[in-house]
């Protein structure tokens, strides 16, 4: 497949607006603003393209836009570009924003036009200082060229885009957490419904789309929905960015159609696991999705349905590869620690449940766990999964349950024989990691 989203990455001055225009950039925007396409036609085109959200859930973008009320009763519509990319193992949006910011901005502009939005925000995680500076500079260029602002290029189209920096909170990648954060609050997710399309930021209809999703839109407008659909499988059309990291020889962002298999991505693109090692497990879509074993990886398609069929999820496309030096119990504990640290504290199952899961896993890793602990852990996983408010808590047990499914022996070794088969865990009753305080008990 030809490079689409990454076509300009690595080019000299890939960030400058003149280079972007010389490569055909903003042509779609000029055509649309000039009346070449109505908002309804643009939405229809995106619907027809089959573009699905690249942030994690894979929901069809055009359909999402269609959830906006026809009559907003005078309220403005907001578009929020989710650039909070915080899912461990995911680093594609950072690349898109740092290397080709105008592609993202044109995507935001076209999508804003499609949903009749005049104010859009790019919510970028606080750690992306460079990304925010690069986007700010690119926005200033776009304003200077008259591509943004009031009555763009003499039309009646008005659009302002503002970069809004987060300040360190994983949960702000969840769309309602992001909305709360943008309103100047703690980023605690809201109960849905009402959905953001009806009642989002500032009480107004709001669409939240991921950076990569929006970056696809200029290409759909420029080259047509049919072209977009011609790439990849029917249910997963268009180019996709995969982030491969962990124990591989060539970690990086790889662009491919979703017909590529997981094995091809890991073995061919990323060079496979380090010499002398064997593949043990892969987490295909950021840290919150279930783990896969080499058996599943072998013939796994990398589209949304293909990975679901193998018991996991495409998620953010952040693939973490682990070789035989990894201890699966330790990895599970590691992810649960992350969820515990990043839990926003709003709902009890997540706030207290992840902390208790962490305590139980720590005991197992340190050789003091019992079979009762394991049983309690499994039960707790069910509760946290079923009753948490948002995706963080709902997916927090995934790494535990999936490692238990495939590597139960490792758990049993830790518990029954006080032995870590991979030799990672310190079984002396004190782990190398610092104990985290468990302060929150329900």
């Amino acid at each position, binding site marked *: 497949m030809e490079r689409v989203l990454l076509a300009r990455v690595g080019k000299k001055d890939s960030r400058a607006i003149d280079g972007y225009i010389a490569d055909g950039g903003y042509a779609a925007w000029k055509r649309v603003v000039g009346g070449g396409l109505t908002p309804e036609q643009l939405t229809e085109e995106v619907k027809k393209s089959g573009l699905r959200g690249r942030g994690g859930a894979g929901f069809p973008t055009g359909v999402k836009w269609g959830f906006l009320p026809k009559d907003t009763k005078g309220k403005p519509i907001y578009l929020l570009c989710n650039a909070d990319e915080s899912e461990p193992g995911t680093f594609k949006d950072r690349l898109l924003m740092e290397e080709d910011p105008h592609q993202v901005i044109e995507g935001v502009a076209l999508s804003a036009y499609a949903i009749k939005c005049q104010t859009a925000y790019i919510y970028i995680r606080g750690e992306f200082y460079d990304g925010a500076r690069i986007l700010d500079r690119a926005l200033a260029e776009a304003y200077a060229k008259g591509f943004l602002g009031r009555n763009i290029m003499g039309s009646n189209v008005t659009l302002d885009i503002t970069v809004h920096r987060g300040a360190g909170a994983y949960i702000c990648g969840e769309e309602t957490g992001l909305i709360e954060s943008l309103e100047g609050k703690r980023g605690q997710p809201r109960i849905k419904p009402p959905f953001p399309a009806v009642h989002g930021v*500032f009480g107004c209809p709001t669409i939240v789309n991921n950076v990569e999703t929006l970056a696809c839109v200029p290409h759909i407008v420029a080259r047509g929905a049919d072209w977009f659909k011609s790439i990849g499988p029917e249910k997963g059309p268009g180019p996709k960015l995969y982030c491969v990291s962990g124990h591989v020889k060539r970690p990086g962002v790889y662009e491919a159609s979703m017909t590529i298999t997981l094995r091809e991505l890991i073995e061919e693109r990323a060079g496979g696991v380090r010499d002398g090692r064997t593949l043990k497990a892969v987490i295909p879509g950021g840290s919150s999705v279930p783990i896969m074993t080499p058996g599943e990886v072998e013939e796994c398609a990398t589209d949304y349905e293909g990975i679901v069929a193998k018991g996991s999820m495409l998620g953010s496309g952040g693939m973490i590869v682990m070789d035989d030096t990894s201890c699966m119990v330790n990895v599970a504990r590691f992810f649960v620690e992350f969820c515990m640290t990043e839990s926003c504290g709003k709902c009890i199952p997540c706030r207290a449940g992840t902390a208790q899961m962490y305590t139980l896993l720590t005991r197992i890793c340190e050789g003091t766990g019992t079979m009762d602990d394991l049983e309690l852990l499994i039960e707790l996983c069910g509760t946290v999964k079923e009753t948490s408010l948002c995706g963080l808590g709902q997916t927090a047990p995934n790494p535990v349950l999936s490692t238990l499914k495939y590597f139960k022996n490792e758990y049993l070794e830790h518990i029954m024989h006080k032995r870590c088969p991979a030799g990672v865990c310190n079984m002396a009753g004190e782990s190398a990691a610092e104990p985290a305080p468990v302060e929150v008990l329900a």
Partner: protein
Amino acid sequence: MSHTRYRIASAGKPRPFPPEAMTRIQETLKRYPTKQAALLPVLWIAQETFGWISKESAEEVARILELPPSHVDGVLTFYTMYNLHPVGTHLLQVCTSISCHLAGAGDLIAHCRKRLGIGLEETTKDGRFTMIEVECIAGCDRAPSMMVNDKYYEPMDEKKLDGLLDQLSGRA
């Protein structure tokens, strides 16, 4: 994670914003339909102005944005990037999330600990370095990744880290 993250230290004196910061705040307010929405950006301006956010700064922000001080405190303690007490000139942020962990982030922390004589969330006596661990900073393809203040340094190893620390200490 430690309790210091939730306690907002006092600067011991009022912290009015200098005029240039006030101008930035006024410009920022224009981008949002409510004053409260400008809270995160205004807190960033406070941190960029003073290096950290004191109780007094938080009160000043609350006054400017017409928010209850308790709301500002709640927001400040929710997000991890606002420094609620003074930090060293160079804030070493070592990513210890999965891919960096697999690539040996723990060794980097151990190395800093040995070389600088500080643990996590501690500052060297000369006030030059503070070390913290951070969650995934999207540098997984260049793991282990770390940041010093607002700049990425990746991929890192102990030798590069030594060079960087020498440079930042003015010894190279």
